């Protein structure tokens, strides 16, 4: 790891000012991703600004029923929180399906949103990677790409977004609160992450020095009936091959509202709006779930070693929908 200077910020303003226009300065919260990347010489900040003393650790229900989660709420505290577990079970389940208990006790909500891909070529500094070194080429496209994305890819990058939490947040239409030198603003979660396109090194719409302060989840009629299903190579403590965050509002057997978001298959947390629409005013049957799954994966592009993913993702969606909508005909 390269040397760096370190300061601990006391307020949001101090933290933002400490970063300022210095593109070689970074925030550090729980550190579970940035410390790892610094050890591998992938992140090489000259200065770290420790934000763990900031007052961003609350989970509060707002007067309009929305729930606001401070950026420094740890993954474990968020998963265990009664309001989250009762109102948004898919979020608790997604968090508990990610990492290990030790890491969940360290990793924060804000950091989880910013975690970087686990593409092995991104981590291997001896190989080309457009995300790590723009213009150097992508080793995964013609390499060993079993874990890689099948949706949202480009000819520059096929790295998968690794987060489970973000899959649930995209299904829940979350809003990201950020603060920067020019004040505060909000970003719809679905607009927060960028597709790789020609610039895979640019992963989100945050501007220089902006600090994530909170994540807001709108109150909804469907989120209570929701779940998260993750399929992986071993039963626990592994990144997703495929995953699905789903929610259904069902009245007299008919679906009035649906949410489907996918993990393990997209270059960003993948919301499947067209598949959701295909379920509206339909009966909650396996046949209809199956049709929706086909819609969700219709644009999938596979590579040499991940041709199994579209079918696995479809089965994941169907199984997840059956868990909350019943196993009917």
């Amino acid at each position, binding site marked *: 790891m390269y040397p760096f200077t370190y300061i601990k910020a006391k307020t949001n303003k101090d933290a933002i000012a400490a970063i300022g226009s210095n593109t070689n300065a970074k925030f550090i919260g729980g550190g579970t991703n940035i*410390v790892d990347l610094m050890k591998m010489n992938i992140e090489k900040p000259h200065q770290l600004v420790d934000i763990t003393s900031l007052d961003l650790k609350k989970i509060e229900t707002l007067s309009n029923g929305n729930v606001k989660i401070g950026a420094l709420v740890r993954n474990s505290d968020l998963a265990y929180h009664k309001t989250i577990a009762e109102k948004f079970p898919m979020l608790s389940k997604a968090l508990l399906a990610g990492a290990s208990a030790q890491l969940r006790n360290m990793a924060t909500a804000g950091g989880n949103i910013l975690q970087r891909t686990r593409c092995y070529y991104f981590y291997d500094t001896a190989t080309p990677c457009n995300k790590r070194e723009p213009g150097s080429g992508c080793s995964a496209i013609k390499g060993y790409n079993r874990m890689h994305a099948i949706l949202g890819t480009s000819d520059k990058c096929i790295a998968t977004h690794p987060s489970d939490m973000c899959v649930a947040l995209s299904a829940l239409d979350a809003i990201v609160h950020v603060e920067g030198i020019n004040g505060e603003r909000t970003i719809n979660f679905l607009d927060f992450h960028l597709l790789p396109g020609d610039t895979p090194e640019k992963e989100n719409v945050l501007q220089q020095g902006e600090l994530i302060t909170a994540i807001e989840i709108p109150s909804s009629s469907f989120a209570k009936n929701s779940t998260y299903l993750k399929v992986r190579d071993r039963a626990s403590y592994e990144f997703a091959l495929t995953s699905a965050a789903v929610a259904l509002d069902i009245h007299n057997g008919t679906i009035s509202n649906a949410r489907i978001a996918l993990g393990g298959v997209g270059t960003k947390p993948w919301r499947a709006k067209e598949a959701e629409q295909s379920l509206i005013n339909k009966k909650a049957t396996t046949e209809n779930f199956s049709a929706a799954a086909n819609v969700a994966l219709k644009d999938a592009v596979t590579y040499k070693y991940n041709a199994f993913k579209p079918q696995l993702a479809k089965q994941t969606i169907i199984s997840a929908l059956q868990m909350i909508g019943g196993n009917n005909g």
Partner: protein
Amino acid sequence: MNIKQNPSGLQANGFTLPLSLSINGKQYDLNIEPRVSLLDALREYIGLTGTKKGCNQGACGACTVLVDGERINSCMTLAVQYQGKEITTVEGLAEDGNLSALQQAFIEHDGFQCGYCTPGQLCSATAMIEEFKNGMPSAVSPDVASEEFEFSEKEIKERMSGNLCRCGAYVGIVEAIQEAFSNKETTVAHETFYL
């Protein structure tokens, strides 16, 4: 208090910070670079080598320690972030020379072979039992909003998945945790383990 400063012989690269860490009830004053992980501070600068370095990337759990009673991976974090916290390592689990019930149960049930992962397993399981008692769900709990779970083998395996054992002593580890959880009297060890 015997503090080893830079036993590796590495020269600090200019920027060091004074740092006071509270570990197993004792205060340790250091002057280290911010890039030193909590794990390296424990092992290389303080000399508490009970905590082990396995993968050094948060995948194996050998470095697990307790911070204010909660388990974390000490390899994935910087020591400078832990001033003011109470850190417990495997050296701090016994009280007055008496092993904790969990440590004793690991011996009774052969919860290890080579022993390299054991400090991490012990710290992790110590905190895991508290999490369970406090009603915190896991990925295999039937209802995340309920506080009623069975302390089953399935729950233990899921909750301990952040600690790998390359010797494969998992059967003994799970039995030891079950026994420590239920506070059963540790009498004669299971015959089958000594055949």
